[in-house]
C-alpha cells in the first residue's frame, strides 16, 4: 500500500473513523492491529522479521532494566556490608552482563538487517575479488526478501535498547505496547526514526477528537500529497529520462538532471514525512520533525543538521558519541596528541569517528559502492570545511561579508549546488557512470540545451515546466513563511472563507495537477527503498 494509493487513503479513513469511536483505552491497540495489517499487506513473509526484532529487543531491554534494578536493590541492601571496591567490582560485573545483553541483541538485529540488505552486495564484491585473482569459482547470489522499512524499525529498536542501557529511558513493560512503537505504520515507509522517549509520550495516550488537531493533521497530509504528487512525481519523468541514458544525456543535461533530482528528492521525502506526521497528528500523536528548510543551509554541516534529522541524530548519538569515547579511540587520542601535537592530535580521533559515521551512513543508504562513496564524499567535504574554518573567518573579516544578504544567498546557492553534485551518487548505479557524468558536466559543450527547446524532450512538456515552476516557487515561499512561525497557524488566523479557499484550493490542485491514475507508474517514495 503506497501512501498515494486509493487503498491507503481508504485504510486511513476507516482507521480514523474507528479510532475516535472505540473506547479510548483501546486506541493504541487499534493502531497496533492496523500497523500489522498494513505490514501484512506489504508482504506476509516479512512479518517474521519485525516480530523477531520486536520480541528480542523487548526482552533484552527488560532484562537490562531488571539487572539494573536488581543491582540497585542489592547495593541498597548491602550498603553497609560492602566496601567501596567491592561495590565497584559488583557494579562493573553487572555492567558487563548488561553490555553483553546489549551487544547480543544489537548484533542479532543489525545482523538480520545486514543479511537481508547486504548479503548480495557482499557476495558481488567477493566474486569481483575472486575474478580479479583469476579464480573461476563464483558464489551464488541469495534470494531474500527485503522487509519494508527494515532499516527504519531496526534503527528505532536499537536506539531504544541503547537508551534503556544508558538509563535515558525506562524499558516498556508491555510487549504489545512496544510492538506498536516498532511497527507504527505511518513511519514504516520512510521514517522518521523515532525515539521511544518522544513518541511514547503521545502514542499510548487516550485521544479525544479535537477539530483543530484533526484539521491540522489533514492539512499537513494535504501539503505532503502536493509535494509528492504534483512536484516529485511530475519531475520524475525528466530525472528518469536523463539518468537512464548516459550516452545521450550528458554534459549540461547532467546539470539539469542533478537539480531536478535534488528537487524531486526534497519534494518526495519531505512530502512523505508530511503525510506521516499528518496521519499521526490526526490521531493526536506527535512525531518529531525531520527537516528544517534544509535547502536554505549555508554549509554542508548545517545541511546535515536540517536534513533527515532523525537519521543524522541517530548516527550522532548511537555511533559518533560512543565511538568517540570508546577505549581504542581514547588510546588513539593519547597517541596522536603525543605524536602530532595537541592541536592536530586531538582532532584525529574526531575525524576517525566521523569517518565511521559517514561510512555507516553511506552503507545505510544502500547496498552499493555509490552510496559508500557518497558517504565518504560528505565526510571529506565536512572535514575540509572544518579545517578551513579559520581561513573562512579571516576571509569574512577581511571582506566584511558576514551577515550580508548577498553573501548569505551565495552561501545558500553554493551549498545547494554541492548537495546537487553529491546527489549524483544516488542517481547512477555505477561509480564509473557517476564520475563520468560529473566530468562531462564540467567539460560540457552543450549548454545551448538550456534554451534551444531540448528540455522539452525530457518527458516534460511546457505545461509541466510551468506547473513545476509555480509549485517550486510555492514551496520556497512556504519555507520563507515558516521562518516567522507555523504557516498553518497563520492561515488559521484568517477568516473562514479565506481558510476554506486556501485548503480546498490546495486539495483541487492535488486532484487536478497530481500525477496519478492510468499511465502513472506508482513510484515508491525514494526513501522507502532504504
Amino acid at each position, binding site marked *: 500500500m503506497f501512501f498515494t494509493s*486509493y487503498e491507503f487513503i481508504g485504510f486511513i479513513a476507516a482507521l480514523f473513523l474507528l479510532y475516535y469511536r472505540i473506547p479510548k483505552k483501546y486506541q493504541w491497540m487499534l493502531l497496533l492491529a492496523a500497523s500489522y495489517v498494513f505490514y501484512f499487506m506489504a508482504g506476509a513473509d516479512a512479518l517474521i522479521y519485525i516480530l523477531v526484532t520486536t520480541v528480542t529487543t523487548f526482552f533484552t531491554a527488560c532484562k537490562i532494566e531488571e539487572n539494573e534494578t536488581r543491582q540497585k536493590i542489592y547495593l541498597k541492601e548491602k550498603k553497609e556490608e560492602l566496601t567501596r571496591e567491592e561495590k565497584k567490582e559488583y557494579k562493573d560485573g553487572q555492567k558487563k552482563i548488561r553490555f553483553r545483553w546489549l551487544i547480543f541483541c544489537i548484533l542479532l538485529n543489525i545482523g538480520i538487517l545486514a543479511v537481508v540488505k547486504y548479503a548480495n552486495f557482499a557476495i558481488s564484491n567477493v566474486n569481483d575479488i575472486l575474478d580479479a585473482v583469476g579464480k573461476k569459482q563464483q558464489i551464488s547470489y541469495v534470494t531474500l526478501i527485503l522487509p519494508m522499512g527494515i532499516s527504519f524499525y531496526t534503527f528505532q529498536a536499537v536506539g531504544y535498547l541503547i537508551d534503556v542501557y544508558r538509563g535515558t529511558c525506562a524499558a516498556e513493560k508491555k510487549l504489545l505496547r512496544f510492538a506498536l512503537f516498532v511497527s507504527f505504520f505511518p513511519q514504516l515507509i520512510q521514517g522518521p526514526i523515532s525515539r521511544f522517549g518522544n513518541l511514547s509520550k503521545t502514542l499510548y495516550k487516550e485521544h479525544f477528537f479535537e477539530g483543530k488537531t484533526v484539521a491540522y493533521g489533514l492539512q499537513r497530509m494535504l501539503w505532503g500529497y502536493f509535494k509528492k504528487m504534483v512536484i516529485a512525481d511530475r519531475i520524475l519523468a525528466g530525472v528518469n529520462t536523463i539518468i537512464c541514458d548516459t550516452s545521450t544525456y550528458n554534459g549540461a543535461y547532467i546539470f539539469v538532471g542533478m537539480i531536478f533530482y535534488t528537487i524531486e528528492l526534497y519534494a518526495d521525502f519531505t512530502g512523505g514525512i508530511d503525510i506521516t506526521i499528518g496521519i499521526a497528528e490526526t490521531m493526536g500523536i506527535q512525531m518529531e520533525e525531520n527537516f528544517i528548510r534544509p535547502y536554505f543551509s549555508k554549509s554542508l554541516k548545517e545541511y546535515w543538521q536540517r536534513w533527515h534529522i532523525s537519521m543524522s541524530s541517530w548516527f550522532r548519538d548511537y555511533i559518533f558519541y560512543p565511538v568517540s569515547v570508546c577505549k581504542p579511540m581514547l588510546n588513539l587520542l593519547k597517541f596522536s596528541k603525543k605524536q602530532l601535537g595537541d592541536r592536530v592530535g586531538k582532532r584525529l580521533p574526531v575525524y576517525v569517528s566521523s569517518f565511521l559515521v559517514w561510512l555507516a551512513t553511506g552503507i545505510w543508504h544502500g547496498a552499493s559502492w555509490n552510496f559508500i562513496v557518497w558517504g565518504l564524499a560528505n565526510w571529506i567535504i565536512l572535514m575540509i570545511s572544518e579545517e578551513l574554518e579559520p581561513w573562512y573567518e579571516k576571509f569574512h573579516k577581511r571582506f566584511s561579508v558576514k551577515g550580508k544578504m548577498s553573501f548569505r544567498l551565495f552561501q545558500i546557492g553554493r551549498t545547494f549546488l554541492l548537495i546537487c553534485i553529491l546527489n549524483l551518487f544516488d542517481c547512477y548505479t555505477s561509480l564509473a557512470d557517476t564520475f563520468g557524468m560529473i566530468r562531462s558536466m564540467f567539460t560540457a559543450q552543450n549548454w545551448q540545451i538550456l534554451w534551444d527547446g531540448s528540455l522539452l524532450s525530457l518527458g516534460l512538456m511546457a*505545461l509541466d515546466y510551468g506547473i513545476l515552476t509555480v509549485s517550486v516557487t510555492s514551496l520556497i515561499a512556504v519555507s520563507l513563511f515558516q521562518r516567522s512561525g507555523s504557516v498553518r497557524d497563520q492561515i488559521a488566523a484568517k477568516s*473562514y472563507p479565506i481558510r*476554506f479557499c486556501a485548503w*480546498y484550493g490546495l486539495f*483541487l490542485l492535488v*486532484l*487536478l495537477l*497530481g500525477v*496519478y*491514475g*492510468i499511465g502513472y507508474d506508482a513510484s515508491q517514495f525514494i526513501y522507502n527503498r532504504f
Partner: protein
Amino acid sequence: MKQKTEYGKKAVLSIAAVGISLFLLQRLLVPKYVDDVVEGAFIREYYKEEKDFDVIFVGDCEVYENFSPAVLWRDYGINSYIRGSAEQYIWQSYYILEDTLRYEMPKAVIFNVQSLQFENAQSEAYNRMTLEGMKWSPSKVNAIRASMKPEEQFLDYVFPLLRYHTRWSELTSSDFAYLFRTKRVSHNGYYMRVDVKPAENVPEGRPLKDYSFGENAWKYLDLMRELCKKNDIQLILIKAPSLYPHWYDQWDEQVADYAGKYDLAYLNFLELADEIGIDYSKDTYDAGLHMNLSGAEKLSGYLGAYLTEQAGMKNRKGEEKLCEIWEEKLEAYEEEKQRQYQFYGIKEDFNERSSCD
C-alpha cells in the same frame, strides 16, 4: 448554541461548495464523445429510448457499423437496437444484455462472435467507452469487475474525475457546450458512414499457435445463451463480413459446432457476402474493416428477410406510436445521410421510402 448554529452553517455551506464544484469539474472533464470519438456515446443513448425492441444486437464495431436498424424498420417493420461499442468484449456484451433485460424482453438477440477471440480486456480506453455509458446497476458493477485491466481501479469508474483529472489541459469548446446536455450521435446504435475506401490488399491472418477460444470467452457465451434461454429469447450468432481482423476457419468451425450443439442460428456473413451482393470496392469506408452505409443497408436487408422468414419477427408498422417514433428517426437518418453525402461529395442513389408504407 449560537456558535453551534454558526458552525452548522459553515459546514453546510462548505459541503455544498465542495459538492457542487466537484460535480461541475467532473461534468467538465469527462469526455463528451460528441464531436470526436463518438463511439463512447453509443451505450448510454439506449437509455433514452422507448424500450420495446424486437431485436437487440450486442457486440463490437462489427455490429454498430454494419447493420442499420433504420432499414430493418423501413423494409420489414422490425424494431431493433444495437447495444454495441468499440471493441466491446464478450463479457461486456453479456452484462449489457443483462442490463437491457432489466428494461425489456426482446424476441431475439443477435451477437457478433468476433470478440470470442479475447480472453482479457486489451485496452483501458475501450473499457471506458463501453462501461461509462452503462447506468449503474449490478450488471455494470460486474461488467467493470470483469473488464478491468490490472492497472485500473474500480474507484475511477465511480468517480470518473479521478480518471480524467488531467483533461483540463485538453478541453475543447465541446466540453463546455455539452456540459449539461448531449446530442444523439447514433441511429438506434448504428454509426453511419457513407464514404468509400475500397478493400485492397487485405492482409492474410498470421498463423496462430492455438486457435481455440479461451475459457473466459466460452464462459460468457454460455452465460449469454443461458440468459436468453431462461427469458425465452432467440440467440442468433453472426459474424459480420469484415475482412480484417482476420476471421480464421478454425474459429468459424468452433462457433459453428457450438451453434449446432445448442441449436442456435449462426450466420457467417463473410460467406454470404456474394449472395448479399457486398462489393468490397464500394461497400466499405475503411478498406474492408467495416461497411459503409451502402454495405450496411445491403446486410440489413438480408438480415431483415432472415429475421422475418426464419426467426418469426413480425412487421410492426401497424403500431401507430412506433410509427411516430420511427418517422422522426428516419427523418434524422435521412438528414445525416444527406449531410454526409454532401460532406464527402457523394451522389445519392438511395430510394427513400416512407417509414410506414
